[in-house]
């Protein structure tokens, strides 16, 4: 049977499932899959610090994006503005409970939970405490990552704006810019971070607290 250290030498490409053996990289180096050229791992010694800074920033801009007006339109003097609160008010008024609930989870709760649990994971790793909480949060994160639809919401916003372009004068609000900022940062975070790397870091910081059950 193989030990954990030996198994840690392997990595499987997430796209085509090819097995690779890891080789040491220099700082900032990347390793690509030999079959499909997908990025499989990279070396970044300051990953935790860098990502923590990005996560804090994007958390702040996410809160701003949720708080204020996203866009407002003006049709012949009639004004209407879109913010998250007005969105739920209108959905409740039209009795669209299923869509409203999905919206609440996919656009508000999951992105917020994702960023905040990412923050706690990295912060706890930095101060080297609460290993159990970090582990639970990492598992939570891996389930959450499929259900974050903030980027899709933004594209829909652009589509809706283009649709309204002929009839109305559109003004973008503070939240619109905050949305762009959040999405950009989120893109950088997901590009930088890999779950494998996070778990490796977790093992490194807290040691082998949990005995391996595979042996």
């Amino acid at each position, binding site marked *: 049977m193989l030990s954990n250290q030996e198994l840690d030498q*392997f990595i499987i490409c*997430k796209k085509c499932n090819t097995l690779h053996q890891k080789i040491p990289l220099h700082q900032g180096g990347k390793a690509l899959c030999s079959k499909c050229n997908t990025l499989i791992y990279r070396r970044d010694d300051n990953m935790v610090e860098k990502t923590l800074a990005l996560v804090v920033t994007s958390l702040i801009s996410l809160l701003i994006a949720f708080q204020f007006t996203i866009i407002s339109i003006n049709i012949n003097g009639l004004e209407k503005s879109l913010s998250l609160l007005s969105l739920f008010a209108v959905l409740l008024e039209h009795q669209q409970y299923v869509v409203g609930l999905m919206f609440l989870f996919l656009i508000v709760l999951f992105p917020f939970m994702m960023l905040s649990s990412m923050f706690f994971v990295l912060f706890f790793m930095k101060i080297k405490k609460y290993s159990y909480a970090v582990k639970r949060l990492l598992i939570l994160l891996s389930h959450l990552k499929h259900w974050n639809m903030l980027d899709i919401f933004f594209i829909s916003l652009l589509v809706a704006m283009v*649709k309204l372009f002929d009839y109305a004068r559109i003004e973008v609000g503070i939240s619109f810019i905050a949305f762009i900022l959040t999405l950009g940062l989120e893109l950088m975070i997901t590009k930088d971070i890999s*779950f494998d790397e996070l778990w490796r870091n977790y093992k490194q910081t807290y040691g082998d607290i949990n005995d391996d059950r595979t042996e």
Partner: protein
Amino acid sequence: MNYGETINRRMETLMMIERSKFIRCHTCEAVNYEGGKEEFFCRRCQSKMHQPKYISYHRTWAFLITAIILYVPANLYPILITKQFGVQTESTILGGIIHLWEVGSYPIALIILVASVFVPLLKFIFITYLLISTKYNVNSSRVDKHKLFYITEAIGPWSMIDVFVVIILSVLIHFSGVQVFPGAGATSFALMVFFTMLSALSFDTKLIKKEN
């Protein structure tokens, strides 16, 4: 150094012989070695790695069929209802796309056509193909199937665009004279996307592996 070299050689031979026994954990992406046990847990995150194959298989079918059933009302019922000074007009997904095309906004018509017609259909076809081909050992490359699954997972949520657009429009066009609001189609469409995503998530990539 000598010890390291021996280990290296040992792992290389292992890779050659038992490539298919290495499994990637869904949760933490750790590489695990399957020891032929009925049930085992990931060495790093302790999440369950091995469940009987038929559970994943049937669960995926169940979610997929639910999604396909929901796809029918999603297309038949209006997704968008416009009330203009008492006159009510309803438009379905396809009707909306045709209207957009006639009006001349081709890019948006294309985006919505791809996102809300092609993406769900492609997902249905891909998942059905993956399920049938893994069940009946259809001869095609395993790498292709893994790639197909990866694509299926990636394109899934993008069909929500249409629902979000309708929601945004219903908030913005909400005057006393003119009102836009989501219809029953929006609900069933959103549920359809939800179930296709569940179906893709419950598909076990080990099914692909077990074919040979």
